[in-house]
């Protein structure tokens, strides 16, 4: 390992915190949902970095599952949950 994994994982975590600003700001539900999708893709990155840094190969499986679940969550949101209720422009 190069010693870079943990710093980069931490950096991605800070990115996620910044993205939470978008989740609070809105304006449509989709903007908030996009933060959840960002948590999916960045979370996969954090998990694979951690699996390397902490010698836990299982975390790669967790990352695969997370990638899949983020996709399902996004599709379910777009197809089922987003009706353009109040709060939209």
């Amino acid at each position, binding site marked *: *390992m*190069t010693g*870079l*994994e943990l710093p*980069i994982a931490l*950096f*991605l975590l800070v*990115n*996620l915190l*910044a*993205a939470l*600003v*978008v989740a609070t700001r809105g304006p*449509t539900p*989709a*903007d908030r*949902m*996009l*933060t959840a*999708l*960002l948590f999916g*893709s*960045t979370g*996969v*990155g954090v998990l*694979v*970095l951690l699996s*390397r840094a902490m010698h836990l*190969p299982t975390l*790669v499986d967790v*990352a*695969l599952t997370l*990638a*899949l679940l*983020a*996709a399902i969550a*996004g*599709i379910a*949101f*777009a*197809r089922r949950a*987003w009706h*353009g209720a109040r709060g*939209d*422009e």
Partner: protein
Amino acid sequence: MSEFASSSLLVIGAFFYFAGTLGLVRFPDVYTRLHALAKADNLGLGCVLAGLALQADSLAAALKLLLIWPLALAASAAVSYAIAHRADALGISPWRREEE
């Protein structure tokens, strides 16, 4: 040599992740944000995965890491299409520069 390549790929990946997050925070509407999320973030993920695959213990472990990327790409393409299509159907109009 491969250590250097791996470190560079990790740093490049972190940069693209940062670009994606910056786009999500700064872009004005849902379509442009989808654009930032779907492309920059997945490129960052690809770079990070490639960097880690370079230093994986076995070929199988490296391939498994690289397998995540097509999955994430396909997933993000499908989700982006679904969300943009829904937003369009709900009548959210794309952002335009304000008239002076």
